[in-house]
């Protein structure tokens, strides 16, 4: 009995230790973001600042056009989400439920593109975008979302494959057209998957760095990640200000996460296991 109890205490101790690794940096970021310069460099460190400086947050907004970056990111993220929730359910359906010759072989191409690193394609993509006049526009950032991101196609396909064929067949026997079957039968059944696609797409777009870095060189077009990365150029390393800026960049995704946690977790659970 006491041995069992000891084991439980041990598990809790280890859990807390791992949780500390994941959570302390977040607490520390928030703590630093509220400190004045006199408290930032204290040793030993002080967790709760004596002087809570909310003004760091307003200063972060004033140091760079942060609000502008937020609005820009809202644009890119919104467009990416719209693109993905249109394209992924369609393309995933074509691979997961519609029957056509060579389907599963062609799907290997989706897997292959999923494994293609951006570093390999970025130079031609940059020069292509330059030719098309797409630099400093959001087109190269969001067009791939409208044409189907392989990861989301993969995810949607998994969900469609779990649907029983009989449901669709019954509608077909009743004389329903193929598009009707998709729209009225298949699509409503994969709604949770579409929410997952929307969420992951939002997080990826919101946190994307290399794409905006390459395609957007005019500051008025920058996204929040890019703006945050350039913060020190204009302001030097002021840690409390930098932390406040980081908090502002993170908060929208955290709110999204807490509102729709179930879909995040379910989405992760359904990603990449069943090949």
């Amino acid at each position: 009995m006491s041995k069992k109890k000891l084991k439980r205490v041990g598990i809790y101790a280890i859990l807390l230790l791992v949780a500390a690794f994941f959570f302390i940096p977040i607490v520390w970021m928030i703590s630093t973001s509220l400190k004045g310069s006199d408290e930032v460099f204290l040793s030993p460190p002080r967790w709760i600042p004596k002087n809570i400086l909310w003004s760091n947050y307003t200063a972060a907004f004033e140091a760079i056009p942060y609000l502008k970056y937020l609005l820009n990111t809202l644009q890119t993220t919104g467009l990416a989400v719209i693109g993905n929730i249109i394209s992924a359910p369609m393309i995933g359906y074509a691979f997961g439920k519609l029957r056509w010759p060579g389907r599963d072989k062609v799907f290997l191409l989706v897997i292959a593109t999923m494994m293609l690193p951006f570093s390999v394609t970025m130079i031609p993509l940059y020069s292509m975008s330059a030719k098309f006049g797409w630099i400093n526009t959001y087109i190269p950032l969001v067009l791939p979302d409208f044409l189907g991101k392989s990861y989301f196609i993969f995810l949607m396909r998994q969900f469609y494959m779990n649907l029983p064929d009989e449901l669709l067949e019954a509608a077909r026997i009743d004389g329903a057209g193929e598009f009707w079957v998709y729209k009225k039968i298949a699509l409503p059944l994969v709604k949770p998957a579409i929410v997952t696609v929307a969420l992951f797409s939002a997080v990826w777009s919101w946190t994307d760095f290399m794409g905006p870095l390459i395609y957007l060189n005019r500051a008025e077009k920058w996204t929040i990640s890019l703006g945050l990365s350039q913060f020190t150029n204009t302001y030097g390393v002021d840690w409390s200000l930098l932390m406040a800026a980081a908090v502002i960049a993170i908060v929208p995704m955290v709110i999204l996460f807490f509102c729709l946690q179930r879909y995040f977790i379910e989405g992760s659970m359904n990603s990449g296991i069943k090949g």
Partner: protein
Amino acid sequence: MKKSKYHMQRPQIRLAILFLIPWITGLILFSLYPIVSTIYYSFTEYNLMKPPVFTGLKNYRNIFQDKNFYQSVYNSLYFVVVGVTLELALSIFSAILLNAKVKGRGIFRTLFYLPSIVSPVANAIIWMWMLNPQYGLVNSFLKTLGIPQPLWLSSAQWSKPAAILMALWAVGNTIIVYLAGIGDIPTEYYEAIELDGGGPIAKFRYITWPMLSNVTFFQLINGIIVGFATFTQSYMVAAIEPKGNGMLGGVKNSLLFYAVNIYNEGFRYLKFGYASALAVIMLLGMILITVILFATSKKWVYYGGGGRDE
């Protein structure tokens, strides 16, 4: 009968074609065309202002004499071998912990997952502050324990471990994937081990690890791809560390990862041909690694008999 298999499904084929038009467009525009052009550019001298000039194998010959190339290959291999191993270990370990019947599981799961939705830029900023040699939380903790405090990102020896720490912090997604995998293991398997008198190590060795090998396989491939693409950490170190000279690569090029080197050559020096040749080598390397992993996977990856697998 067989002949009419697809005849019956002509409406389905039509819809499939319609639905696949965007995908095919994207495949050509954002995957096939860039791959073909990268290969073409790699045999040229190209700086975007002027059209590419064919130079044969010159870029490749130069690469193999370039010490930055070897340094970046070493750095990336270090990052991938050490980093991905630790990422997988931490993920499995955390998933096993989260699977234990404890109070507050949901809260712990949330805490473990949360950092993975933090942007890589913010992640790097947070950890650069955590690992600040003088005022960082990590070193002040080490100080109270009486352990020597590394200079982390300001030292060639400790910068890669620091970058790995940043990657480790964001493994939430992998943890959840493993957690789902553990949930699928029938509890009878563990009971069988208990009957044989086996402890937690035997359970892990004979049940958990083999039953999760398919998850591990996909996470391994994914980790390697993401690992070789490591870029943001180096960028942020150059942006924030005062010693930076504008070029990305950290102290003594210890953070010059492969993708960073491509970026430097392409977007800082505008040597697009040379950077393309680097990209082609990366692509070939990735293909080689993937093929080797798939070839060896039959030996160690266990796919459950039917069940949820397609």
